[in-house]
């Protein structure tokens, strides 16, 4: 069976510090991978998606970037965090074009 991992689960960072969130998927190959952000009481906003190694597409211009160094690894980064980067970050995977996305447990980020 497939599993998706995210870490850390919770993170508190000062404004201006760097960020690196990691997502890995097990039990599948060549998945589509997604990063979403959820603000308190809101729906999820798609940030980045990737259909293959090194292929990153951005949906919303922002202070964040994403990378996919390996087939089942997706990383969300920032060089300098802003207060507005606080939120719940979710990674999701999907079999190619199957249209069902499966979400990880999420990372709660608080920027102070």
């Amino acid at each position, binding site marked *: 069976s497939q599993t998706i991992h995210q870490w850390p689960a919770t993170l508190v960072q000062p404004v201006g510090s760097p960020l690196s969130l990691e997502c890995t998927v097990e039990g599948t190959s060549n998945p589509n991978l997604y990063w979403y952000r959820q603000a308190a009481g809101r729906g999820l906003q798609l940030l980045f998606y990737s259909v293959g190694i090194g292929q990153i*597409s951005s949906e919303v211009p922002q202070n964040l970037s994403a990378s996919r160094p390996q087939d089942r690894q997706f990383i969300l980064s920032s060089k300098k965090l802003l207060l507005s980067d606080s939120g719940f970050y979710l990674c999701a995977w999907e079999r190619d074009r199957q249209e069902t996305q499966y979400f990880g447990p999420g990372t709660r980020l608080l920027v102070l």
Partner: protein
Amino acid sequence: LAKTTQPISMDSYEGQEVNITCSHNNIATNDYITWYQQFPSQGPRFIIQGYKTKVTNEVASLFIPADRKSSTLSLPRVSLSDTAVYYCLVGHLLTGGGNKLTFGTGTQLKVEL
């Protein structure tokens, strides 16, 4: 992109059937309809997906009329543990692959004794 509209909140009691209706008037021909459940501080959990007519699995049923402009998630005999936010989504295929799911604010279902 197809926008979805669903009630902000619903209340129910244990053992009742709950039906949550979602409208998606500008759904495209190739779009699927997907429902997710989310508990606080957890990632959304896939419930059910369909294209037309009726789909049923071990946890829910999804009813989609012929015009596909709406869909209804049916949860039989809800329990307290079904208290969660339920999202109705319409997927949109992205250029070069992938599928964009546009999340609204969802429906907060509260189940009481």
